[in-house]
């Protein structure tokens, strides 16, 4: 009886939580999507295993405790799972996103030498920026400027397109900050990265 008295408000609370969770930006899924795109662009072999997806986390979860609590937990998991699944559904398979990815991928081979020489670095806003133009030969400087302008135009399009394709144009800033983090994490050795305070370090 006590369990039921305690259980219903808990369940109600949990169900309410299930509903409200959907309005939040699906950070984990977005990060997964960003990682897929970033690795694809950088053509990097995964240096470390990607963070496990949510279902894996659930599979590794072994309930412990009172059987009633376990039953409630399992029931809640069943209820919450669809909400989370819906939340995790970040779509990056649109024609526009594919076009942008292809464009960025094509550019990567031209940009890579400038990433390595420190001419261009990944900034803390999900864009690339010219950090040391003097490290580029005089004749290459306008090429660098064009590459950076084109890359940033594509990246801006990519972030807005991902937000739009998932029905939430207002997510653009969060998509961008997610990408900013993932670009930094996935940067190849030798690349230059800007930290939150604006300082630069080489990976």
């Amino acid at each position, binding site marked *: 009886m006590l369990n039921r008295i305690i259980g219903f408000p808990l369940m109600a609370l949990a169900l309410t939580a299930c509903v409200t969770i959907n309005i939040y930006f699906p950070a984990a899924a977005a990060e997964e999507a960003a990682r897929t795109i970033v690795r694809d662009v950088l053509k990097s072999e995964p240096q470390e295993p990607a963070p496990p997806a949510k279902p894996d986390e659930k599979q590794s979860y072994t309930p412990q405790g009172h059987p009633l609590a376990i039953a409630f937990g399992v029931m809640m998991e069943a209820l919450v799972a669809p909400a989370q699944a819906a939340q995790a559904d970040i779509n990056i398979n649109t024609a*526009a996103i594919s076009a*942008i990815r292809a464009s960025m991928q094509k550019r990567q081979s031209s940009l890579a030498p400038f990433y390595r020489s420190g001419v261009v670095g990944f900034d803390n806003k999900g864009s690339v920026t010219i950090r040391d133009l*003097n*490290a580029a030969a005089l004749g290459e400087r306008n090429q660098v400027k064009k590459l950076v*302008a084109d890359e940033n135009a594509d990246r801006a399009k990519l972030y807005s397109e991902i937000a739009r394709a998932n029905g939430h144009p207002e997510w653009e800033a969060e998509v961008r900050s997610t990408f900013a983090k993932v670009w930094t994490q996935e940067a190849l050795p030798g690349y230059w990265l800007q930290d939150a305070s604006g300082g630069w370090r080489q990976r």
Partner: protein
Amino acid sequence: MNRFARRLLKVGSPLCRLLAVAVLSMLSAAGIAAIELAFSIEDIEGEGWRADGLAISLSESTADHFAVAITVANLVLPDDHGSLKGLRLECPVQRHASAWACDDGRLRLEASPIQAQDASWQGSYTDDGRLQITIPRLSVARGTVALELLADDGVWSARVRPNRTAIAQLAALSGQLALPSDWGIQGRTSGLVKLAGDPAGLTSVDADLVFDQLAYASPDGTQAAEKIVVKAELKGRVRKTVWRFDAMLGWPTGALYAEPLFLDAGDGPLTATLSGSWSPQQARLQIDGGSLELAGTAGVSATGWFLGPELSPQDLTIAMHSDDAGRLYGRLLQPFLIGTAADDLQVAGRVGLVLHFDKQGMDQAGLEIKGLALEDRQGRFGLDNTDGSIGWDRSKVVPVSRLAIAGASIYRIPTGAFDIRVRFAADRIDLVEPVVVPVLGGSIALDRFALSGALIAGARPTWQASASLRDVSLEQLTRTLEWPPFNGTLDAQLRELRYADGLFSVGGGLEFSAFGGRIEVRGLSIQDPLGTVPVLQADATMRGLELEALTETFKFGRIEGRLDADMQDIQLVGWQPDRFNLHLRTPPNDDSRHRISQRAVENLTELGSGVPAGLSATVLRVFDEFRYDRIDLRILLHGSVADLDGLARPDGGYYLVKGSGLPRIDVIGRNRSVAWKDLVERLQQIQVEGAQIK
């Protein structure tokens, strides 16, 4: 010298505190008469300068020979030019005819702004007041400088021959030229500078200098140079306070980056000349002739005059010509266009440009084009052989500008030759007559085009146009775009074409005939048409299409009958469907023959469910075609999901095709939702007669 003597000789003056001791002694020994004079001043100062520990000694060996030595412990130079320490000037003086000469003088400086010196010098002074001094070699700015000075009754001339003197140090020495201290400026100069003057000041300058090994780099990398050699010549003469000058600058080797321009003299050296006059009193600069030639790229010439402390142009004409517009674009224009749709072009042809400026700014411009061709390397647009001239005038109506264009292309769609007659005046551009562009067997006629707000700083450019399409072949259009070929022609009235803030929009509608029916597209707009991901929006209605022609075109399996379609809220992102609301249906009261082939039934079924109907395994395989009553299909695409619907059935399913007669066949849908990519994949997999739908 005792203290008494010092006090005795002290001179009190606000500007000059003189404390000197003179010792005069006459010695005589062995019948040789000699004079030795030593004179010292503890300190002496004038306006802006000061000398400490000045000593002058003079000793006579014969009547025609004596030696002079001047030493100064510390000489503070005027105008903050630093100080000379340990100065010693020695000179054995000899009397020649009516002149005193010093053929083997010595100058020593322990420290000075132009470093320590130990130099020989020669000098002479004639009785009529003519002075000549030569210092063959002074160590200056890591190089050497030879000096020659002549003065005669107030008229003077000087020759300065720098040899490999460092530019940065020279600039610092001059105190006039402030070069950025953090640019790491390197480079040296050699040559000859001849100066002449009279008591009123400088009267002529002749400089012939070579600057070599010139290099610098600003910390932000926006300004840099490497291995530059520059040759400069300047001749200047003053007459009645007005300077006349001729200058020449040659830049044969080296590379320069001045954001956004990169110029490598190896790609074509640069030469510039400038002749004119400068009146400091009137602050008036007159350019009689100026030229700048970037070999193989462009030449610029200019005449005019400027006035005031900021030298604002009063009457200035600049003419530019290029016989290689490709190099002109690559070297001088493209850097300014980075980040725009015009930053990756291939250009050829010849251009000439004349600009005139008055006190208010540019008031006239003329552009002459010969054989100009440009092509976007990403294949988005291009212009073939174009000839013509464009005139612009800020205030007056100018003659009509004409352009004859051999052809153009946009998104691989080529056009035929066409002419443009247009009038450029003030901030407006108006068509004189409609521009008719032959395209795809028909034409686009640009009936009206008006641009305002261009070419005026601060104004916001806006343009409006209207155009009409006549008899444009859909067959040619679809073939060019590598779509399944349509038959028919496109006619359209495009009213209120606009382009603003990256959005191209069309008022009115495109109306065209295809597949025996009429198709009308309205509300067409394209955001960012030349960007990576253009977004197209439109609504379309189709009436009375002949299904037989349509299904034949798309190799779908033959269907006969007519079809109406409404396609609302179309959105293509990157030219791919992203959103639309499509309703295909048999028109009401359609009395045409309604037949659907077995293959079409199979394909429709597979499209709806993902699996074929398998008619060939049933008794129905003996029938090639079936009669149908109505076709009705609704597809609502939103993002990655397409919702499907048709004629409602009581069992919850819906008819895609409602059959009639016998044998009756209905195509019934049950799936209400399908992933768009699955639907597209199914469409692509449908193959009939070896053809694949793309």
